[in-house]
């Protein structure tokens, strides 16, 4: 078996497509395509764009023969596998909306995963659902209580006969896909992205972000059920006709060095990862392998999807310098599923540009006052942030205070965006849509940021989000688990994160509890610890406090921000039962 080529003769084109089907129709005239690698780093399947188009059109006719109406949601468990890709594009030709579902299961996590799938299938009102054999048992269980027209593995779908109707691919104003945000698992939201929106974002990424050129080749282990994996590393390469090599996310987590091996062997030029991925690869590098890789072709090492900490990236580039990795290849970017994917890119080939600001000014006045890194200013505490670059063409950005007033340069506030690739809304959730998207098209990102000229600096993502070892944990999911305990009332738990001495985030949940019996309190803590580990896969510091001691907002809900400050004060004063070191 041979991977699809890097060099090819089809002229680069990306600006004239208005739908994903058109983009594939064009790419199918060349020889490039997708390649799939096993956990041992062996190529096990290739899917040239020409073959993908051919097979997707056959499958589209089979899907149509099932008689569900145009625009119906087709839920696809998004394992890194050629079948997911084939079904995703079959939907494009058949006129259905594909909905990638997470393909992520943990140790003893059967129950949680099935429940999650059931919620996601139900919210998008899926009419058809597909999983590869690995995930089929979970999908079947999740679908039993729902009214889904057909649930099957790829082989069963392939047995249907083809409808003879003429294919009418999804048009520019129809949805391209429904993307669940990587947010709360308990309260998921499905982002609606039109063909016009995603095609606009793809052409901006290709032209202004990564500046695709002949000889480019991408490698990805990012999941297809996240925006960066789906839009950035599945759709964007197709929209500019380059080849991609895939490793499954699970194989990457198990053998992170595979990423470097495939990059090296295929002389790939582009790959993206959250900072966490670079850290994992560096941590698991073996001394005897360091010089064996050739990473000198790697010109775009994209970094996004979580707050960027430069130490992790420096460590990675130092360790892989003998393999020819160039730190200037780091490309910071910022975006979110609600904007299709990308909003800002740093300047290409410049590496990480940072801004060092006075920590006290930032904490007390939300002002990003630059400090010189000269020895004279050593007595100032400072924070270093990565500059994510300017917005893509067509995007406007504003930093606003809590009253909605626009803030000047270097003043922190909430980031609002308006532009051509913003979502149409959250599927079936007008309330959540109205909370973030104004009638005149401004999206409240919830992220805290400041501006330097047109350059954007993010200082805190989604003010409440907790990120632990690369996993996004939403405080409401932790709070929910606490509040379903019989001893705890709804609204009596509040979760947030703190930093330990190594600057790693730790999750904390503070719970009002009237139980005084020590044994029963310990039992509650143990039970909650177990539940949080099972559902969310993290350790959490659990702090029981007397009733009416959490700081609440005017609406009576505990304030995460104020509670966190209280916690840190009490912690500093030594008043707490739990030390982060104990549970963590």
């Amino acid at each position: 078996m041979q991977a699809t080529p890097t060099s090819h003769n089809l002229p680069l084109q990306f600006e004239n497509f208005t739908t994903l089907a058109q983009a594939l129709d064009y790419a199918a005239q060349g020889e490039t395509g997708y390649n799939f690698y096993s956990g041992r780093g062996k190529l096990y399947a290739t899917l040239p764009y020409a073959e993908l188009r051919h097979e997707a059109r056959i499958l589209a006719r089979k899907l149509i023969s099932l008689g569900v109406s145009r625009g119906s949601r087709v839920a696809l468990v998004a394992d890194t596998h050629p079948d997911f890709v084939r079904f995703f594009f079959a939907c494009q030709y058949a006129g259905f909306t594909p909905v990638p579902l997470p393909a992520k299961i943990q140790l003893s996590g059967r129950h949680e995963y099935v429940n999650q799938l059931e919620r996601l299938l139900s919210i998008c009102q899926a009419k058809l659902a597909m999983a590869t054999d690995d995930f089929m048992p979970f999908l079947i269980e999740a679908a039993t209580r729902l009214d889904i027209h057909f649930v099957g593995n790829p082989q069963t779908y392939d047995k249907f006969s083809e409808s003879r109707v003429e294919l009418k691919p999804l048009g520019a104003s129809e949805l391209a896909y429904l993307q669940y945000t990587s947010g709360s698992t308990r309260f998921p939201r499905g982002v609606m992205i039109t063909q016009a929106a995603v095609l606009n974002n793809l052409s901006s990424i290709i032209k202004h972000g990564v500046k695709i050129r002949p000889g480019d080749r991408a490698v990805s282990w990012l999941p297809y059920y996240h925006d960066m994996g789906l839009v950035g590393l599945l759709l964007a390469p197709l929209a500019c006709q380059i080849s991609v090599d895939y490793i499954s996310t699970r194989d990457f987590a198990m053998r992170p060095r595979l990423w470097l091996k495939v990059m090296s062997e295929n002389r790939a030029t582009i790959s993206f990862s959250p900072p966490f991925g670079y850290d994992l690869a560096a941590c698991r590098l073996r001394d005897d392998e360091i010089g064996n890789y050739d990473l000198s072709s790697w010109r775009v090492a994209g970094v996004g999807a979580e707050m960027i900490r430069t130490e992790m990236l420096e460590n990675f580039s130092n360790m892989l310098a003998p393999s020819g990795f160039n730190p200037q290849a780091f490309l910071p970017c910022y975006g979110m599923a609600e904007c299709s994917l990308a909003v800002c890119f740093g300047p290409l080939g410049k590496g990480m540009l940072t801004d060092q600001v006075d920590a006290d000014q930032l904490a007390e006045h939300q002002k990003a006052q630059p400090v010189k890194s000269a020895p004279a200013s050593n007595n100032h505490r400072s924070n270093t942030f990565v500059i994510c670059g300017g917005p893509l063409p067509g995007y406007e950005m504003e930093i606003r205070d809590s009253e909605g007033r626009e803030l000047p340069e270097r003043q922190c506030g909430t980031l609002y965006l308006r532009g051509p690739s913003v979502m149409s809304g959250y599927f079936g959730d007008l309330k959540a849509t109205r909370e973030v998207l104004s009638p005149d098209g401004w999206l409240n990102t919830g992220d805290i940021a400041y501006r330097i000229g047109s350059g954007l600096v993010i200082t805190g993502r989604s003010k409440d989000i907790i990120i632990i070892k690369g996993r996004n944990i939403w405080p409401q999911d932790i709070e929910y688990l606490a509040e379903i305990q019989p001893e705890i009332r709804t609204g009596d738990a509040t979760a947030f994160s703190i930093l330990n001495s190594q600057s790693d985030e730790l999750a904390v949940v503070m719970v009002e509890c009237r139980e005084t019996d020590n044994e029963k309190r310990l039992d509650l803590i143990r039970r909650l610890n177990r539940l949080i580990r099972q559902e969310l896969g993290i350790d959490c510091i659990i702090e029981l406090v007397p009733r009416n001691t959490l700081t609440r907002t005017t609406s009576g809900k505990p304030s995460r921000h104020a509670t966190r400050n209280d916690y840190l004060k009490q912690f500093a004063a030594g008043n707490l039962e739990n030390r982060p070191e104990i549970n963590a």
Partner: protein
Amino acid sequence: MPKNEEVLQQIVDILKPKVSKDGLEVTAELDLVNDLGLDSLKVMEILEDLEDTFDISIPINILPGIRTVGDLVAEIQKLSDDK
């Protein structure tokens, strides 16, 4: 074909260095997540070691059914028997 006890011993040897709790004896009844405190990344490292040690490929769909050290031993035994 390795016997169950041998497999258990080999697996315990792989688990031991990953467990952060000092002096804890790893036995079949213990829960991997709750008793041994393994997080998802540690689990991945352990799976890599297991695949390499037993020269097997561990399918992802068996993970949700594994709770204890004993469950893990039984699955690994089955996978290396089927080889």
